[in-house]
C-alpha cells in the first residue's frame, strides 16, 4: 500500500485532489468566516439562516454561482477573458506544493521551496492584470494598472524581508527552516532574532518582530486585501478587475484571493512562527504538527479578516507612500542590521 501511494502518478494525483479540496473548502468557509467575522465586529450575527448558524451558506452561494451563466460581454478579448480566472487560480495551487503542513505532509519538498513560492506568488498579479485588460471596461483597466503598481511596490519590501530571513536561516528549504525552529516558541524566528536560545548568544536581528509586521503588511497588499484592496475598490471602481465577470468566473477570482491568503499566512507561519513545530516543546510530530501548523496559519488568517473589518481603504498614493517611504527603508535597515550583526562578530573573531 505504501509503495503504491508513493508512486509518482499516484502522488501527483493525491496532491492535486488534496490541494484542490483544501483550497475549495478554504475559499468556501473563509467567505463564511469573513462574513461572520464582519458581523461579530459590527455586532450582528452574520449569515445564520442556512443550516445551523449559517453552516450551509457556502453551499448555497456555490450553487448560486455555478448556476449562473458565464458570459463574455461584446468587445472583450475572448481568450484572455476566459483564461484570467484559470491563471489567477494556478499560482496559489503551485505555491501549496512546497508548503509543509506536517513533518511528512508536503506534496514535494524541494530545496528551493521559498524561492518557488515567491516565484509563483508573483504571477498572481499577471492574471488580475490580464483579466482587467481583457474585460474592455474602464474600471477594469484602471484596476489592472493599480494592481501592477501596487504589486511592484510591495514585492520589494517583501523580498527584502525574505532575504533578511534567509540570512538568518541560511536555507531556502521550507522543511529545514521549520526544523531549525523546533523546541518551543522562544526558538521561533520571530523571537530567535532577538536572542538565540539554542546557540546561547544574541540573535541575528533584534528587529525581527518588525520584519514580521512588514511581511504581514506586504502579504495583505500582495493578496489585494483591505485596507489595500485597490484592485477591487468597490466604492471607486465598481468591482475593479472583476467588474465584467459573473457566475463562477467571478467566484474563481474570490477563491484565488482566499487561496492566496492561505498561502501567504502559511508562508508567514513557516518563516516566523515555526511551522508545524509545537510552541511548548511537547505534543509535537505527526498529526499534532499539522494541528499546530493549521492553528497558527488560521490565527494569521483570522487576523487578516480582523484587519479588513477594522481599517478603511487607504488612498492610492498613501498606499504607494507606505511602501516606498516607510516599508522599503525599514526593510533595508533590517537587512543591513542583520548583515552587520552576523558578520561583525565573525570579523572580530578572525581579527583577534
Amino acid at each position: 500500500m505504501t509503495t503504491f501511494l508513493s508512486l509518482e502518478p499516484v502522488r501527483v494525483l493525491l496532491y492535486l485532489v488534496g490541494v484542490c479540496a483544501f483550497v475549495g473548502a478554504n475559499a468556501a468557509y473563509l467567505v463564511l468566516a469573513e462574513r461572520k467575522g464582519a458581523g461579530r465586529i459590527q455586532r450582528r450575527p452574520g449569515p445564520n439562516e442556512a443550516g445551523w448558524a449559517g453552516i450551509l451558506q457556502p453551499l448555497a452561494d456555490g450553487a448560486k454561482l455555478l448556476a449562473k451563466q458565464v458570459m463574455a460581454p461584446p468587445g472583450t478579448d475572448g481568450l484572455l477573458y476566459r483564461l484570467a480566472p484559470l491563471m489567477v487560480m494556478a499560482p496559489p495551487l503551485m505555491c501549496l506544493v512546497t508548503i509543509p503542513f506536517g513533518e511528512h505532509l508536503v506534496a514535494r519538498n524541494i530545496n528551493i521551496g521559498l524561492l518557488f513560492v515567491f516565484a509563483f506568488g508573483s504571477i498572481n498579479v499577471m492574471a488580475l492584470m490580464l483579466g482587467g485588460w481583457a474585460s474592455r471596461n474602464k474600471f477594469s483597466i484602471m484596476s489592472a494598472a493599480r494592481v501592477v503598481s501596487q504589486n511592484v511596490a510591495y514585492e520589494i519590501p517583501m523580498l527584502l524581508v525574505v532575504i533578511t530571513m534567509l540570512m538568518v536561516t541560511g536555507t531556502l528549504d521550507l522543511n529545514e527552516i521549520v526544523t531549525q525552529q523546533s523546541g518551543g516558541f522562544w526558538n521561533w524566528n520571530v523571537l530567535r532574532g532577538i536572542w538565540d536560545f539554542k546557540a546561547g548568544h544574541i540573535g541575528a536581528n533584534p528587529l525581527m518582530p518588525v520584519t514580521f509586521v512588514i511581511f504581514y503588511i506586504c502579504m495583505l497588499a500582495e493578496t489585494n486585501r483591505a485596507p489595500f484592496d485597490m484592485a477591487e475598490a468597490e466604492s471607486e471602481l465598481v468591482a475593479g478587475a472583476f467588474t465584467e465577470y459573473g457566475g463562477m468566473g467571478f467566484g474563481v477570482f474570490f477563491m484565488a484571493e482566499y487561496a492566496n491568503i492561505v498561502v501567504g499566512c502559511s508562508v508567514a507561519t513557516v518563516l516566523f512562527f515555526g511551522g508545524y513545530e509545537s510552541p511548548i516543546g511537547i505534543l509535537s510530530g505527526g498529526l499534532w504538527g499539522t494541528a499546530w501548523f493549521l492553528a497558527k496559519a488560521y490565527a494569521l488568517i483570522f487576523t487578516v479578516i480582523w484587519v479588513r473589518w477594522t481599517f478603511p481603504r487607504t488612498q492610492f498614493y498613501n498606499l504607494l507612500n507606505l511602501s516606498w517611504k516607510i516599508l522599503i527603508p525599514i526593510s533595508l535597515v533590517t537587512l543591513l542590521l542583520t548583515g552587520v550583526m552576523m558578520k561583525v562578530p565573525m570579523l572580530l573573531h578572525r581579527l583577534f
Partner: protein
Amino acid sequence: MSLFSVIRETLFGFKSLIVGMRITALEAAKPIKTVQYPHDTLPMPARFRGHIQLVLDPVTGRPKCNACTVCEKACPSGCIDLDGLKREGDKRKSVSKYLLDFTKCSLCGSCVEACPSDAIEFSRQYNVVSLSRTTFDNMDLYAKAEAEASEWTKNHPAPAEAVVAASAVPEDGLKPALPSAPAA
C-alpha cells in the same frame, strides 16, 4: 522633515492601528444587537402611530365610544364612517358601526385628539400588508372591537348578578354592559 520625526510619526501611526484593532476586538466580544425580525420583534414604542382602533372600557369591557361623530367631523380626509344606536338598558348611545378607509388615512391623529371620551387610539399594528386594496379601504374597527370585547369577557368571568343580567341578552346577540368591576 527630520529622520526622527518620520520615525516618531511612523511609530505613532502604527500605535493608532493597534488601538483600532483593539476597538474592533472589544466590539466583537460584546453581545449581538440584531433582532432576528420574523422570529423576534422589538416592542413597539408607546407613541407609534398605526391605524386607529376603538378603546375598550377597562371596567365594562365594552367600547368606550358613544358615537358622537366628532372624529368623523374632525377627519380631514373623510375616512371615518360611524354609526351608533341606543341599546336596551343603556342611558346613552353606543357605537354600532365604525368603518375606517385606511387607504385615505394619513395618520394625522385629528380623530384621536378630537375624541371627547378618549375612545380611539393608535394601534401598534405596523405590518399592514395585503394583496388587495379592499382589505384596507373598509376596515371594520367595530367588529375588531367586538372580538376584543368577547375575548375580554372570557378572561373576566362575570360576577353572579351579571350572569342573571346576561340571561336577558337581546336578540341581536349584543351582550349588555356588565354592571360592576370584575374580581380579576
